[in-house]
């Protein structure tokens, strides 16, 4: 089982190459196509709060969440409906991919399920070609971000990856956070302890 997991990890070794390719940061012109990763309960609530102050230039918004998530769709539709009152030309889409990891799932099996999710997230990210990816912690963001990194590496589309760690995380990072700290363009934390422990992170105070 260990050997299989290592074999499946090999494609991920491409990612360090993607990191080398990320050195140049490009200026973008509006509108920006945004991919938003939503996740069970609190994650979706937090990410919608983050989106609440964004201007019209961040459109369309493409939401991705796990197929087992029953709550996010209603919250997102409600948010977008309200937004359409201010910005009538607002556009958004909703897509589902297989859940990449259950709470407390073992590390080895998580690699397998994450790679399975990538079979869906890769073609989806290729289709959407976002300029910007926003995520805040649910396991779903790992396959999505890795897909985006691969697309960047292959020269197809270079997305800016912005990760905001949940406000619940005061002293330690979530598992997604620990991974994406190295792979995101901007990694935002909401408590000063984490800024100290993770110096490459950005601290803006509490933003949700």
């Amino acid at each position: 089982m260990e050997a299989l997991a290592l074999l499946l990890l090999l494609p991920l070794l491409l990612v360090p190459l993607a990191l080398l390719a990320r050195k140049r940061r490009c200026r973008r012109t509006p509108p920006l196509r945004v991919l938003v990763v939503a996740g069970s309960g609190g994650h979706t609530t937090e990410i919608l709060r983050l989106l609440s102050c964004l201007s019209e230039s961040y459109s369309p918004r493409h939401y991705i969440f796990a197929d087992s998530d029953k709550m996010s769709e209603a919250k997102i539709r409600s948010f977008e409906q309200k937004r359409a009152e201010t910005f009538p030309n607002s556009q958004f889409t909703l897509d589902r991919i297989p859940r990449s990891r259950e709470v407390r799932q073992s590390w080895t099996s998580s690699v397998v399920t994450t790679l399975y999710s990538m079979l869906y997230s890769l073609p989806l990210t290729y289709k959407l070609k976002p300029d910007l990816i926003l995520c805040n912690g649910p396991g779903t963001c790992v396959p999505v971000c890795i897909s985006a990194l691969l697309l960047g590496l292959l020269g197809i589309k270079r997305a800016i990856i912005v990760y905001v760690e949940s406000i619940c995380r005061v002293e330690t990072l979530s598992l997604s956070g620990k991974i994406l700290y190295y792979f995101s363009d901007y990694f935002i934390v909401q408590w000063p302890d984490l800024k100290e422990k993770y110096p490459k992170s950005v601290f803006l105070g509490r933003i949700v």
Partner: protein
Amino acid sequence: MKSVFVTVGTTSFDDLIATVSSPAALQVLQSRGYQKLVLQVGRGELKPGPCSSPAVAVEAFRFKDSLAEDLGRADLVISHAGAGSCLETLEKGKPLVVVINEKLMNNHQLELAKQLHRDGHVVCCNCSTLVETLQTMDLTTLKPFPPGQPEKFALFLDKVVGFQ
């Protein structure tokens, strides 16, 4: 009528429900001027029936789509350490006693409860110290919890994508 709202979110926390509806706790609540106790018991097995003791009127329910109304009506909230419950309560400006569930020792959600306690926004205790805490707590020392500022995130994003 001054009321207390107890919430365990989507979890089960029978120890809290049992402790807060015990005669000792009801007596302390009454002595501090509360006349009503509403329990949101979630998935727990313990769900006290409605009763009106001479001390405090007690009622219970499991779940609602939104706890906004119950939180709004409460003069005191006693909650498990779940982030959603804590933040929703603090955003409504209600005094909050957070009760740590010691049977969930490795739960990372303790991080937020401990930080809120360190910053003086909540009273913190566990089930064994709850009654004593209710007796001695001084809610006037709790500091208001300012709302988060998503506009700072928007400004930051505009800057890094090159809109400014």
